[in-house]
């Protein structure tokens, strides 16, 4: 067992883990943050995408010990202070999700893209999400959802 320290969604976390434990399993099973998903054995699907130090990574390809001393951000942190991120709103507005399994990873990549490029073209959006697979939507509405978020950059209150 190895002790790791990191921040997850801004909160400090300390845990003893097996050196081989994948970050996706740490986040999902140890921390119970099941919004991050798992969908393949080969780093192809992107359902496991989360942020490591502000950059989207495939957490099925990161060992938990590699995140020691770093900052992890997951889908659970997109909504802040009762306000959805515009990306979350965009996915609802433009029907950017169906089964919802790829959605957390897609939204985290979208947020990263918009932070760097607030007004991306369709081609830039398609390239940004090209490492992630959605089996349901045919991508069109994911592109529209991210465009929606670009056009509505300020989070608004969402009646629940």
């Amino acid at each position, binding site marked *: 067992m190895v002790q790791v320290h990191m921040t997850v969604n801004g909160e400090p976390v300390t845990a003893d883990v*097996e050196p*081989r*434990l994948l970050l996706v*399993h740490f986040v*999902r099973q140890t921390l*119970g*943050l*099941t*919004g*991050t*998903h*798992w*969908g*393949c*054995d*080969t780093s*192809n*699907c992107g*359902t496991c995408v989360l942020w490591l130090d502000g950059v989207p990574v495939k957490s099925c390809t990161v060992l938990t010990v590699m995140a020691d001393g770093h900052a992890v951000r*997951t*889908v*659970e942190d*997109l909504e802040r202070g009762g306000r*959805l991120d515009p990306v*979350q*709103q965009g*996915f*609802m*507005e433009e*029907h950017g*999700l*169906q*089964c*919802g*399994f*790829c*959605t*957390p990873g897609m939204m985290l990549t979208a947020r990263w893209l918009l932070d760097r490029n607030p007004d991306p073209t369709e081609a830039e*959006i*398609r*390239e940004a*999400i*090209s*490492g*992630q*697979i*959605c*089996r*349901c*939507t*045919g*991508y*069109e*509405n*994911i*592109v529209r959802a991210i465009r929606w978020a670009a056009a*509505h950059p300020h989070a*608004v209150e*969402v*009646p629940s």
Partner: protein
Amino acid sequence: MTVVGERPNPVGFGRMLRKEDVRFVRGKGQYVDDIQLPGMLHGAILRSPHAHARLVSVDTSAAEAHPGVRAVITGKTLEGLKLAWMPSLSHDVVAVLATDKVRFQGQEVAFVVADDHYTARDALELIQVEYEPLPPVIDARRALDPGAPVIRDDIAGKQDNHIFDWEAGDRARTDAVFAGAEVVVSQEMLYPRVHPAPMETCGAVAHLDKVSGKLTIWSTTQAPHAHRTLYALVAGLPEHKIRVVSPDIGGGFGNKVGIYPGYVLAIVGSIVTGRPVKWVEDRSENLMSTSFARDYHMRGEIAATREGKILALRVDVLADHGAFNNTAQPSKFPAGFFHIFTGSYDLQAAHCQVRGVYTNKAPGGVAYACSFRVTEAVYLIERMVDCLAAELHIDPAELRLRNLLRPEQFPYTCATGWEYDSGDYPRALRLAMEIAGYAELRREQAERRQRGELMGIGVSFFTETVGAGPKKHMDILGLGMADGCELRVHPTGKAVVRLSVQTQGQGHETTFAQIISEVTGIPPEDVEVVHGDTDNTPFGLGTYGSRSTPVSGAAAAVAAQRVRDKARIITSAMLECAPEDLEWEKGRWFVRGDPTRGKTIQEAAFAAHGSLELPEGVEGHLDASCVYDPPNLTYPFGAYICVVDVDRGTGKVTVRRFIAVDDCGPRINPMIVEGQVHGGLADGVGMALMEAMAFDEDGNHLGSSFMDYLLPTSMECPSWETGETVTPSPHHPLGCKGVGESATVGSPPAVVNAVLDAIGVRHADMPLTPAQVWRAMNGRPYRTDLAIP
């Protein structure tokens, strides 16, 4: 700025944001693998590396001794429990764990239950299995060769790999039309084995409560009620002591219809250990062992006049069903609904024969949004029509327009007996051509050809047959394909509707609320939709084959009509008038001629629960139920046009445009319908160009991970262009026809026709990968079901 949720929702049909999304966008969906129970253990399956081998011995001692391992289960253990084999969905049996032989690579051999998932996997490595390899049957076309190894020697007296012969249509009449035809074109084609590959793999959590004797199974199932009944039949457990819960499902596409050995093993694991057991397969297990789709080797012949009037169709199919016949389809139809292969055209005669064979591959066959093999049927006819167009030098769109059924021919009974409910086919194709700018595209293509560039335009027209189905014709293992619905309006006018079907992303929590809303006038946000839990929903066969809206949607509409009718009686008691004197406007009954005197459905609901005296024989409360047995199937249709560019040097195909005009009757929620179409179009691009599950001569699966089984990404998919026509179904209470699989069914031939149009080749089999296209251009297309020669 638009604020999510601020706009008023439509009362009834119309664009409305999805109710389920509020949890999904927060990462708060609950999928099977998200379930954590106190004391839960984890299972993992040891699988065969061989496609065909005798099982000599399985030594589990080292695995059992491994710290953290709670149980190791083998075929022998299951034999003791009489659970080593389970009934398939097609009058065959399936091995839960191998006892005598392994029959495909990836078959289940042993099951380890341990404290955690990693330990379970470690222990798999410690199981010693001795195999005696046998020659496998890989090429379906050699499965019936004399002397071919017999795969199913577990079946008493079985001497070959034959499963069934089945035919439809009138052979003699078809032969006669062919004999007199001016033009006959024939073509062999393979609809290759593909996999639904939902982003969430299959899995289950089983928990047997020893005190109450109640078994709860959370599993990735599209058909929770059918699963419960099957578990009762297989395991001999009383059905009322079994609860199947299908929580949020990360895509199904037919992959989650059947019962997999892993589900049964999780149950056995829980019985053996007395603790909850979770089993979730990995991606390779999903691709190698769970329900594949298609694998139809087809030979089509089309007869026509020289002017291009299509007269007849003759089809011979060899169907590769893998090692066990476990296709999920109505019992009387071993080839599913393939015999709708006459498609959208008015033919004089048609005949097909289908022969099913065993091979050393995973079982399955009906999955991946195929509407029970309408996918194969549409591919066949739409390829044959293009072959005929090439033979006659007639534009493929023009040839279709000459032969499409005309609106006045509906209801139309086709040559193989299906009764199409309604349609205006030429209108849909003309609309697609208009959106595409068809004539202009052909001009551009001619210009590019002059410059040596390869541009292709592909057309397809499809007729779907969905909403299975009338009970008198359709059942699965004796369970009729009707669906129940229960609607209860609470005193304050809010409602709960309970469905037998289950969503895997189709948005039932929204659309079914809209159905209730359309009929009763209760706002959709006031309708709670309960589904996917056998303890809390009425019986029905589940969601697949695009059947939710045609069958369960009809059940919901009828239940809502019954509630509305009852509200009329209650309102008449409230207003002291006769029910016949009341008129309905959405949400309210009022006195004919005096619109100010009326009661809303909410007022009626409260009165129904109050002290109001109701007429003799009318009970209180406001609820109703329905079991809907559809009188016929529904027949959605559409016209698709695909435009591709092909790189001459590499064979790489780029889908430049895709135009899809769909007619599924009235659209309950147009946003959701369009989303369903988009997803199916991406499927079509994937199957036509990328998705390959070939096997080498030893039976090694060559598409067993996402490194090799390629799914379309945002880069392969164009921006979809959609259009619609609306032709209601005359027999569905809302006119709705279903749409979930339309685009998956209709799009592959459009893509293939476009690529072949670009390269000027009569036929090459999917997937049209760069290698296959390049080889086809050079006159040497290969068989995509085998290792590339």
